[in-house]
C-alpha cells in the first residue's frame, strides 16, 4: 500500500475548508442580523422606583417602577420583584414586622424599546401596625430585581 500524497493533501484541504466555514457561520450567528453586538454583562438595563414618604403604622404607599433599556434592541422584562434591603436605623430592621412589600402590580412581560424607558407597574408598600417605635423617621432602602430577555425580531 503506497502513500498517496496527493489524496492526503486533498483531505486536509477539505478539513480546513470545512472548519473555516463552520467557524464563520458560528461567529456570524452570534452577531445576529448584523446589528450592533452588545456582549452580556458589559452594561445592563436599569430599573428603579419612585420614593415614598410619610410611612407610618397602617399606612400604604405605592411606588411606580420604571425600566430603562440602554441596548440597541428591544428587551422583554419577564419578572420584577422588590424587597426591603436595609434601614437607616440599626434598631429598626428591614423585616416584615416593620415594612411589607406587596406583589408587583403590572403587566408582564413588558417590552421596552431600544434606548427607551417604560413604566413597569407599581409596588404596594405597607407599614404594619407592628412597626417598631424605632422606625420613626427611618429611611428604608428596597431592592428591585428585574429579569429581561432580548426580543427577537
Amino acid at each position, binding site marked *: 500500500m503506497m502513500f498517496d500524497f496527493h489524496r492526503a493533501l486533498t483531505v486536509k484541504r477539505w478539513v480546513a475548508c470545512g*472548519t473555516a466555514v*463552520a467557524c464563520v457561520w458560528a461567529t456570524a450567528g452570534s452577531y445576529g442580523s448584523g446589528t450592533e453586538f452588545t456582549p452580556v454583562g458589559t452594561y445592563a438595563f436599569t430599573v428603579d422606583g419612585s420614593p*415614598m414618604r*410619610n410611612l407610618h*403604622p397602617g399606612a400604604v404607599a405605592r411606588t411606580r417602577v420604571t425600566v430603562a433599556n440602554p441596548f440597541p434592541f428591544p428587551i422583554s422584562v419577564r419578572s420584577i420583584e422588590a424587597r426591603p434591603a436595609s434601614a437607616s436605623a440599626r434598631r429598626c430592621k428591614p423585616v416584615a414586622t416593620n415594612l411589607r412589600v406587596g406583589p408587583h402590580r403590572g403587566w408582564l412581560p413588558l417590552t421596552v424599546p431600544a434606548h427607551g424607558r417604560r413604566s413597569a407597574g407599581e409596588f404596594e408598600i405597607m407599614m404594619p401596625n407592628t412597626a417598631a417605635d424605632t422606625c*420613626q423617621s427611618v429611611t*428604608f432602602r428596597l431592592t428591585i430585581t428585574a429579569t429581561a430577555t432580548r426580543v427577537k425580531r
Partner: protein
Amino acid sequence: MKRRTAALIVASGALGAIAVGGGLSAWADWSVGTTSGQMIATGDTLPVATKPVAKLAGGVPRVSWEAVGFGSGQAVGGYVVFRHDGDDRLAVCRGPATKLTCIDDKAVVGRAVTYTVAATAGDHWTGPASPISDLVIRPAVPGAAGLAVGSPTPSASTGTGQVEETGTGRTESGGAVEPTASPSGTATEATASPSAEPSPSGKAGSDGAKPHAPNPGQGGTKP
C-alpha cells in the same frame, strides 16, 4: 473511499461547530440578564401633642387636649395620657384618635399631679410628650379627710386597677394620701396653679408621709 471518509469528517466537524457555536451565540444573544435597582421609603414621625388642660370634674381630674396629625395631614392612631406625680410617671389613659379627654379616677386624693399627652400609632409608636399641664389636686371625698389626717395610708395611693403601666416600670406606690385643706370634705373643683401648695394642716409629717412634689419634670420623655 478515503475521499468519502474525508467528506464525512468535514461535514460532521462543520455541523458540530455550527451546533455548538450557534447554540452558544443564541443563548448569549437572548439573555439580557438580571438587574437590580433601588427605591426609598421614609418613615413618618409622630408630632408633639398640644399642652393638655387638666381640671377637676366632679372631684376627679379631667384631662383634655387638641387633636394633632402627621405632617402629611393624616390622623395619628391615638393618644396616651401620663400622670406625673413627683418623679413617677404612669399611663392613665390610652385611646383612639377620636377620644380627646381622659378622666383620671385613679388619681390620688390630695396629691399634686400634672399630665402630659403623647400621640400614638400602631402597636408601638409613641410620640414625644406634650408640654406639662398645670397642677391639679384631687380633693378628698367626703369623710376621707378625717381618715387621712395624721395617718397616711400608702396602700391607698396605687390604684392600678385600670391604669396601664408604662415601660418605665415605675409606679406610684409609696405615695401617701395627704389631707386636704378642707376638713369638711367639701370637694371643690379647682385647678391648682403650680404655686398652690396644699396646706396639710394637722399632718403628722412623718411615717413616710411623702411631701407634695409638684415637680413633674418628666416632660419630653418617651415611655
